[in-house]
């Protein structure tokens, strides 16, 4: 089910990213690109830096070196005569509107129901009129299979339902790219399928997606490209058939042997 609508246009371009947590180097000169319409799946052992790389794309993490460009715009920093200086919070917020994110722990706003979770950002940030935002939210809830949960608060929803509302919330901003940070890792096994189904559906519509996951079945079926990370570096990347059937790097072979058996 590989995506056929991949263009040559680079939507995300991360160049030479170095990232430290204290003295530990979690990202080591990482170069990472995503084309418009592409579904990229990031895999790797825990601590390999895949979630950190994902969080650099919308500047939830700062970087010590390198630059991230999304949709032609430098994220988080301004170029002042070749030197990068931190951008103002308000500008960073503006840039993040085009990058949607789905979290491992869903992070639905606990103080509002599903409908308001989805409506809030378009109303506040895009100036969408309330009636229109609500109509859009109801359409999105139907799309993720929860048409009757508009009034439900997060505490009243199962993990799988919360994650589907979270996907709808991200989609409501009509982002250029959607980031998924281990979206099924916090779910009970029986709820993984319903979330993956929504993600498959999204991929088939040509949504640009970057997915950090341990779901190898999903990676194999849905990804246009699989990127393998280890110890803060990208060690191998390619189409899923190549990565899963003929992994070249020994660490990739070890990882796949560990998760597929």
């Amino acid at each position, binding site marked *: 089910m590989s995506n056929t609508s991949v263009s040559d246009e680079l939507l995300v371009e991360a160049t030479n990213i170095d990232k430290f947590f204290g003295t530990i180097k979690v990202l080591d000169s990482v170069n990472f690109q995503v084309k418009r319409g592409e579904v990229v799946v990031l895999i790797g052992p825990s601590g390999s830096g895949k979630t950190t790389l994902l969080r650099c794309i919308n500047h939830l993490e700062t970087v010590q070196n390198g630059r991230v460009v999304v949709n032609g715009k430098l994220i988080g920093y301004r170029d002042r005569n070749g030197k990068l200086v931190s951008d103002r919070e308000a500008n960073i*917020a503006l840039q993040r509107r085009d990058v949607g994110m789905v979290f491992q722990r869903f*992070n639905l706003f606990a103080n509002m129901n599903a409908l308001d979770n989805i409506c809030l950002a378009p109303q506040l940030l895009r100036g969408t009129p309330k009636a229109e935002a609500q109509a859009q939210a109801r359409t999105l809830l139907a799309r993720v299979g929860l048409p009757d949960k508009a009034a439900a*608060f997060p505490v009243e929803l199962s993990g799988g339902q919360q994650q589907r509302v979270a996907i709808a919330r991200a989609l409501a901003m009509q982002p250029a790219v959607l980031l998924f940070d281990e979206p099924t890792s916090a779910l009970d096994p029986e709820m993984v399928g319903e979330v993956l189904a929504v993600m498959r559906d999204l991929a088939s519509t040509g949504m640009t997606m970057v997915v950090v996951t341990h779901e190898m079945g999903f990676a194999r079926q849905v990804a246009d490209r699989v990127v393998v990370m280890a110890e803060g570096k990208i060690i191998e990347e390619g189409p899923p058939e190549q990565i899963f059937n003929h992994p070249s790097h020994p660490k990739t072979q070890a990882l796949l042997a560990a998760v597929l058996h």
Partner: protein
Amino acid sequence: MNFDWAYFWAQLITPSGAFLVGLGLTIIMSVSAQLLGFIIGLAVAFARMSSNKYLSFLAASYIWIIRGTPLLVQIVFIYTGLAAAGILRFEDITVGDITFPGNLQAGILALAINEAAYMAEIYRAGISAVDRGQFEAAKALGMPPMMLMRYIVLPQAFRIILLPIGNQFNIMLKNTTLVSVIGVSEMLLVTETINSATFRTFELYSVLGIYFLFLTSLWNIFMGWAERHFALGRPAAKSPPVQVVLEAHQ
């Protein structure tokens, strides 16, 4: 025991006009100082948590000084001290028939400044207690810091700090008695004045205590309602019974 029941009941049920004015002043002072404390406290909390280290230091110093010195000292300092130093004299303000006395202004201000320091720390605790994921989700959607605070974090922090707020106002109600020291005729000063003429100290202070107990009890009842209404983790709105909705699908 020398206890004049008739005098006690008379003072309790038909208090003097001055005492009722004192009761009014207690309520006016505590409510307005608490409201000011909410506002100033929030500003101080934001300054304290600011990434600007000068602003943060200033806020931390404010909290340190106010919480580190007695309220009684602060009240005298603001009303009598500032005037004696020629810095600020609180003058009576008259609008129409209503006079807003200088010492009442100073009293409310001192209570508010004191309250703000405690409120700032309560806000800070409440904001810190909101799950980091809530901040991240709002940021990822593109909300700037103030919007994130207003729509996501503060509503959740408010539920967390409801109990400490209840506690603070309870203390505030009783702390208004300290303003008697600068001559505001709230309930304690009125009681002292009557006492100096009658020496019925036991009866008069029993009545005074009962009036405070009445005020704090009313507040407790209100807080009990508020706690149920804004219960943590539950929606404030009337949502349909979940169980029934879920069963309908099976």
